[in-house]
């Protein structure tokens, strides 16, 4: 729909890329916030003389609210069809009901039962393995049957990948250990969601390969940004088109604001850019009015942002120079000040909050305060939410205060400002120590430290490794312990001090602390309080790295 928005003020340039669906777009509505919904079909009235009434006769006006620009496939089945694992054509078997096939089939059924009935305590014995092999014996058939199931979807494909690609990046020599184990986590065919859950969570030992990322050099911040810059996004045009669709909703959002609703945008992708554009749009939309509109932007993802600072910014925006120099320490005080200031205010205040569900704002107390802000007359609140489960932040009374209308604004843009990518991934992989540069970094720092400090670090590492070894022996769950990084196990502060004095590394606690501070500064040690209030010291390195550093220390 090529709506001409020129009358409504200064619109952002809406580029309508030539698409084959322009004809369909004729029926677009202005209310397209709800765009990619599955069930947006317009119901034709059951006509008495249905035959003569063409089904889709409704043109421009008949379906004013029909579907918006995103001509998404509305049928779920169709949508799924894109990536569906095609179900096995049964007819292939049914057509040739040979005896062998039948026997195979019943064996398969039986083995499926074995797998199914196996309970958690049951030991992992041969029968299961056999059962599995029978089940998986199916697979060659499946592939022969001409299923072009994208191989890479299957995790076997993942394990096969090393075979295909000679120029694999730093792959481990030889087959991964688990490669022979053919139990696929991908169930055959389309399973309903709950079945899939039980399938993927069935009992039995974990059957993933033992490959680790040790041989794969991880990215640093610099490299991450450098390499990302070289990537050429294949969907750039589509993303821009999506963005332009959201632009068209701006007048609608303004209308909703006018009618006293607050707006919440959700969906996958960063909506920060969209917010910026909307802010600019409002700014220009009201430009002809005598006063400039008051718009406050809030970035909820900023670490350490406080509700009070948000309120204080709004107060300054509203009162300008009249704002009292002392606003009060409690957010409620600032809010009440704001509310009383707004009583004599005429122009509405637009508050745009990026990522209202970001960790700094996520707490219930913060959300309650924001809801009170939203319920204030003259405050127009537009918030964006990124996580899939954000509505659970609000109970009914908060929802009532917030008075939100929701729009799906999927943008597919990266969360580049919201998420610190490298840091997050390091945390996810349990490599917090990456910050100091791992083993090499620690080694480098140690080289520049005096003898005493090096000795202390050696002592610390020796103790930790001994502790880890002890834990390894006593704990029968070896996998559990091995997975724990060095910073999980720790040595008590007193104990280490005692050892240090015994070894003549430090003569006084003062000195000991000075040495430790140096390590702290370089983030080479971690310190935490345990349940009894004792300080526990640890090292943010994996066990291998610890051993490496220790080796260097002893040899060097």
């Amino acid at each position, binding site marked *: 729909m090529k709506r001409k928005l020129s009358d409504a003020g200064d619109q952002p340039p809406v580029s309508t890329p030539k698409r084959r669906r322009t004809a369909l777009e004729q029926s677009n509505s202005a209310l397209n916030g709800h765009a990619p919904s599955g069930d947006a079909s317009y119901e034709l009235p059951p006509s008495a003389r249905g035959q003569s009434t063409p089904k889709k006769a409704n043109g421009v006006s008949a379906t004013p609210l029909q579907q918006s620009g995103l001509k998404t496939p509305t049928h779920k089945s169709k949508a799924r069809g894109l990536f569906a694992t095609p179900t096995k054509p049964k007819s292939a078997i049914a057509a040739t009901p040979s005896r062998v096939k039948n026997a195979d089939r019943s064996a398969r059924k039986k083995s499926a039962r074995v797998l199914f009935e196996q309970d958690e305590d049951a030991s992992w014995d041969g029968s299961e393995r056999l059962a599995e092999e029978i089940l998986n014996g199916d697979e060659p058939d499946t592939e022969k049957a001409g299923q072009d199931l*994208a191989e890479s979807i299957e995790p076997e494909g993942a394990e096969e990948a090393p075979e295909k690609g000679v120029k694999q990046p730093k792959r481990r020599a030889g087959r991964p250990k688990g490669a022979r184990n053919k139990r696929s986590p991908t169930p055959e065919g389309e399973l309903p969601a709950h079945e899939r859950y039980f399938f993927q969570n069935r009992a039995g030992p974990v059957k993933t390969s033992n490959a680790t990322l040790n041989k794969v050099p991880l990215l640093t911040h610099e490299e991450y940004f450098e390499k990302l810059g070289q990537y050429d996004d294949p969907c750039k045009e589509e993303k821009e088109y999506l963005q332009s669709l959201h632009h068209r909703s701006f007048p609608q959002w303004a209308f909703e604001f006018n009618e006293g609703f607050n707006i919440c945008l959700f969906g996958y992708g960063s909506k920060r850019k969209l917010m910026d554009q909307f802010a600019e749009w409002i700014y220009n939309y009201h430009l002809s009015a005598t006063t400039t509109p008051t718009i406050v932007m809030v970035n909820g993802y900023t670490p350490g942002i406080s509700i009070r600072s948000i309120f204080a910014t709004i107060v300054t925006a509203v009162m300008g120079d009249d704002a009292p120099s002392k606003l009060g320490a409690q957010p409620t005080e600032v809010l009440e000040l704001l509310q009383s200031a707004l009583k004599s205010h005429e122009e509405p205040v637009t508050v745009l909050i990026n990522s209202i569900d970001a960790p700094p704002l996520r707490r219930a107390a913060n959300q309650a305060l924001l809801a009170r802000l939203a319920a204030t007359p003259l405050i127009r609140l537009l918030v964006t939410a990124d996580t899939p489960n954000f509505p659970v932040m609000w109970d009914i009374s908060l929802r009532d205060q917030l008075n939100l209308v929701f729009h799906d604004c999927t943008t597919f843009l990266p969360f580049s400002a919201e998420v610190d990518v490298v840091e997050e991934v390091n945390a996810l992989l349990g490599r917090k120590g990456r910050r100091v540069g791992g083993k090499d970094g620690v080694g480098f720092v140690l080289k520049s430290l005096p003898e005493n400090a090096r000795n202390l670090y050696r002592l610390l590492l020796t103790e930790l490794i001994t502790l880890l070894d002890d834990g390894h022996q006593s704990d029968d769950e070896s996998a559990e312990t091995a997975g724990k990084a060095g910073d999980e196990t720790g040595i008590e502060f007193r104990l280490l001090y005692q050892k240090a004095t015994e070894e003549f590394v430090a003569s006084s606690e003062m000195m000991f602390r000075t040495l430790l501070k140096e390590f702290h500064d370089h983030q080479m040690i971690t310190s935490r309080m345990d349940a009894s209030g004792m300080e526990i010291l640890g090292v943010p390195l994996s066990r291998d790295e610890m051993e490496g550093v220790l080796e260097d220390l002893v040899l060097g």
Partner: protein
Amino acid sequence: MDTDGLNDALGLSNDKSQTLGAYIYQPPKHGKSTGERPSKRRKVLSTTSRDKRADRQHFVPLLNGDEKAESVQLRYDTYQELWSKQENKIQDILEDVDSGVLMDVLSFIRSTSPQTCNGCIPTALVTVGSNVSSLSRLLSRLNGQLISTEEGSVVVLESGDAPNLKTTLKNIIRATVTNTDGNDGYQKFLIDRAGPRLLGYDLDLLHDYVQRKGTKKLVLALRDSEAFDPGLLTDLLSLFKSWLDRIPFTVLLGISTSVELFEGRLPRSCVALLQGKHFEVQEAGNCVNRIYETIQADLNTSLWLGRNVTSTLFENTSDYFQSPEAFSRMVKYAYMSHFFANPLAVLLANPDSTVLTQSKLCKAIRNLPSFRMLCEDLIEEGFTKQARDMLEDDEYLIQETPKYLDANQQRMQKMFQAVRVVHACLQYTQSAKKPNVSDLSVRALSGELPESTIVEEMFATAKTLDSDKLDKLLVRLQGIMISPEVDAIQEELSTLLDRCSESGPLRSGYNINSTVTKTTVVQQRIRLSKGQADLSEQAVEYTNIVDRVIALLQVHLTETLINPQNLFLHEAFLFDLRNPLKETFAPRPRFATERALATPFDYLLSSSDITMTGVSAKQPATAVLYQLYLDSGALVNVHDLWQAFYGVFETEEAGGCDDRVVMSLFYGALSELKAFGVIKNSRKKTDHLAKSAWMGL
């Protein structure tokens, strides 16, 4: 790669605004838009006269942007007019619903004092159930009442205001003072007092204030009492108790569970401090039904909500415990949607033909399914000329359309009148489960009511009504149906009743009491035979009247209960799109995110003609990773995941594929999945991730 390009690719703006927590927006003055902005300004200046209107205009021209400005404005004005009428009605209902409890609570507050409560704190316990919003409504009205009579005021306290005793007291004192004197008053109040300066949480301040103002009742309302820390509440109440001789506290507790449960949470010593009364606020459901009835069945209504909208509205109310306010907001949104996006809504404004003379609008009308049906009807009935004119002559069409609209709107009004008739009759016939107006409306709007079992049963029972009940029913019907026939029947009935007033209520021939079972012994066998008892003359007469009533009702209902979807122009006066409402008020964000990631081309329409089967490097990285993730088990090896991810990109881009670039994409995707909370670090094995969300569950 220069930094500008990188930032562009990442969507980062070059200024520092993205790292600021909160800031006042200033439009960017970067180089790119300098070319655009002045030209825009110029346009604004040159068309000042037009711009003034554009400034007021909240709607966008429809019909491909060709809609006339007057028509756009008319749509907006009509919306304002229609909705403000409806809103007033809703407001009246809400006030009416509350007024009962309000009066009770108010009289309680006025009549009680510590002396009447044996020295305890007078307490009003208000259970609100799911109807959360009603309490704040109640409190603000209470506050208004008390302030206007200068008796005192109401201070509302929420659990968020009460982290500890000091802050709570401070908040109470500040709220009390600002409630009447405003924020400046509070500041002044703190400073302008003799003697040493008191701290903000000293109840002496409040004592001072009460004395100055001569406050007789200071109502302290805890909106969500259950959420308060019981220990804090105990401290607070015991403090109030000790100040009760100086400050006239009355406590009002909003309870959403039950009084017993609330009492159970408090220590007995604390409960002993309170003495009071229990009030109950009406459940939201009744209120919502009343609102719906008023909006739809009122005689002045000109826009109706269709079946789909109605069922969505009631679904939301019951599933999400929506308050009546939220309900009326949804109705409002339905009105907004209709006028914002439907160019035909302009017809509701009864505009003169000059506004309507737009070829596009005529085209739009002709494209309506209901127009097609109308034309078919016309031809079937032989009005070929008329049908042709409607199709070809714009002027004729514009002349005829308002007439049809008027007539059909009247039929809608009659339909809802009939619904009310059915509802009224059901009050007399149905004893057990009485369907409310909204249920009946949904059926009526889908055209199912005349054939429904409800109506059939209604007629069956109506036949057996005795004269007293029928009399009442007729009186009731007179109020709803304006028909001389009803009056006539009513008159006849009353004359009949006058004649035989002493014999008790008359029964019709259909009544079970008028059939008699005869027992005769024939050849030593008992024979039962049913037969009509001999009816008295009056009874025969009465049966006649009953028959007439039934016939009248039947004719009336079949005439009026039409299927609104068959009416010409129903698109203009009947809003029946489930979707903007459902998606805007009950969104499914998880579904949206999962869909975007699992099938990204639902959103990203590909311009190229690649057929998409399975994951490919053409998709956004996060989507690729998510699909791999979907196929993995509950525990994922990061290394293997990375290998698979790399495999996807490797196969697509022959040769020119930098593994570090892919790695950076992998990083980005992984961090996003983590931010969504679908993966977390697993302690079970090294370099493994645990899956924490299953799609579709």
